C-alpha cells in the first residue's frame, strides 16, 4: 500500500498547491484577524475532502481502471484514500489548533476549555465530510457522488447557521461538558470507521468497465 500512498502524496502535492496557499492565508487571518471562526473551520473541512479531489483525478486519468491491474486489493485501494485523508487532515488540523492556541496566548485570553471545544468541533467537522461522502463516491463514482456533496453543503450550512447563534462561552457553561465532547469525538470516530468499512464493501461490489 506504500505505493498507493506515495502516488496520492505526489498528486496532492501537485493538485493541492492552491489549497496550501489558502491554509497559509487563513492561518495568518486566524492569528492576526478578528475572532472569525470561519477561517479555521474552512481549511479543516476542505482538508477532509482531499480524498474526493484525488478520486476525481483518478477517475479522469483512468487510474481507477489501471489500479485494478496492480497487486492491490480493493480494500487497500479504498484504505489508501482514507489514510491519505487522515494524514493530510491531521496535519492541517494540528497546525490550526496550534495557531489558535498561539493566538489566544498572544492576546492573553488563553482558555483551555475553549481550545478543547474548538478542537473537538474542528475534529468533528473535518471528519464528517469524508465520512458521509466517501461511501457514495466509492459506490457510484465521483459524478454521482456529488449528490452527497450537495447534501453535505446543506448540512454544513445548517451547522454554520446554528454555530452563529451559539454563544461559545454560554454553551460551554450550560450544555457542553466533558462527556458531551468525548461522546462527539467517539461518535465521529465510530462513524468514520463505519464509513471506511462501508466504502470497502461498496467498492468490492463495484465493477469498473
Amino acid at each position, binding site marked *: 500500500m506504500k505505493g498507493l500512498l506515495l*502516488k496520492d502524496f505526489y*498528486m496532492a502535492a*501537485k*493538485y493541492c498547491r492552491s489549497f496550501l496557499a489558502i491554509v497559509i492565508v487563513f492561518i495568518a487571518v486566524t492569528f492576526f484577524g478578528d475572532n472569525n471562526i470561519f477561517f479555521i473551520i474552512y481549511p479543516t473541512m476542505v482538508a477532509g475532502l482531499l480524498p474526493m479531489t484525488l478520486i476525481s483525478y483518478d477517475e479522469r486519468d483512468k*487510474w*481507477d*481502471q489501471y*489500479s485494478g*491491474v496492480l497487486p492491490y486489493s480493493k480494500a487497500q485501494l479504498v484504505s489508501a484514500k482514507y489514510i491519505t485523508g487522515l494524514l493530510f487532515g491531521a496535519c492541517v488540523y494540528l497546525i490550526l489548533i496550534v495557531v489558535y492556541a498561539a493566538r489566544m496566548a498572544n492576546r492573553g485570553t488563553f482558555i483551555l476549555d475553549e481550545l478543547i471545544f474548538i478542537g473537538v468541533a474542528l475534529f468533528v467537522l473535518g471528519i464528517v465530510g469524508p465520512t458521509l461522502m466517501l461511501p457514495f463516491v466509492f459506490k457510484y463514482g465521483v459524478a454521482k457522488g456529488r449528490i452527497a456533496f450537495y447534501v453535505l453543503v446543506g448540512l454544513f450550512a445548517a451547522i454554520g447557521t446554528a454555530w452563529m447563534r451559539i454563544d461559545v462561552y454560554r454553551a460551554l457553561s450550560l450544555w457542553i461538558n466533558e462527556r458531551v465532547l468525548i461522546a462527539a469525538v467517539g461518535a465521529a470516530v465510530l462513524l468514520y470507521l463505519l464509513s471506511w468499512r462501508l466504502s470497502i464493501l461498496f467498492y468490492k461490489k463495484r465493477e469498473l468497465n
Partner: protein
Amino acid sequence: MNALEISNLSKTYGGFHLDNLNLTLPNGCIMGLIGENGAGKSTTIKLILDMIDRDGGDITIWGKDNRENILSLKQDIGVVLDEVGIPECLNAKQVGKIMKNTFENWSDLAYMDNLRKLSLPADKPFKEFSRGMRMKLGIAVALSHDPKLLLLDEATSGLDPVVRDEVIDMLNEFTRDESHSVLISSHIISDLEKICDYIAFLHKGKLLMCEEKDVLIEHYGLLQCSETQLAQLDPEAVKGKKISPYGVNALVRRDKVPSGWNVSPVNIEELFIFIAKETDNI
C-alpha cells in the same frame, strides 16, 4: 504447465454476452486475441485479472485459481490496457518510485533500461506524453518487475510502425525465456501475425477458433473461382465466401479441395474476416 487456462467463462452485461469461453495458453507462447470492437477481448483480460466478476467458469494461472490467488499472481503479471491509467501529473521517475513500492520484484535498473530503449523522458509529466509515448510507458512498467505473463490489450495501437516494431522485438525478447508467456489483443492483426504462436478469434462474445498460427496458415487458403466451380466442392471445404460480379473469393480448407485447384495462401486478417462473416450469415 499452462500459463493460462480458461474454461467455460461467461459474463453478461448490458447487451454483451461472453459465451462459455475456453482458452489455453501454454507456457512460453504468445497468443493473439483477435476480434472486432465489443467482441469480448478486454472483458476477457479483465476477467483474468479479476477486475470484474464472472457469471460462470474457471480461470487458472499457472494452475492456480485466479480469484483465490490474484494478489500474488499479479506480482508476476505485467499488464498494458488500451488506456494507460497513469495519473497525468506524474513523470516516469515518480511512476518508477510508486511501482517500486508496489511490486516485490521491481527492478529500477530494468525500468531505466526500458525507458532508454523506448526513448522515454524520465522527468516529463505524463500529460505531455503523446498516445504512443503513454503506451510505451505502460509497456516499460509492465516489463520492469520480472513478469512471467504479459497481458496486453491493444498495446500496440496508437504507436507508429517503427515503435510497433520495437515493441514487437521486446515481446520476442521477452518470450525467449521459456517460462514467459503473452496474451495480446490487437486490431493490428499484422502485428499479431508477426509474433504469435497461437491465434484466438473472438466474435460477438464467442470463440470462433483457437489454433496454432502455423496450422491455420497451413490448413486454410483462398480460392478464386466461379460460383459453379464452388458448387462442385465439398461444402465442408468452404469456410467462408465473398461473391462479387467478378466471381467468388472463398476461404477453403486445403485438405478438402481436390488437387489441381489453385489455392493461394491466406493471411490471419483475411481468415478472421471470412470466418466472422460466415458466422454472422449462419
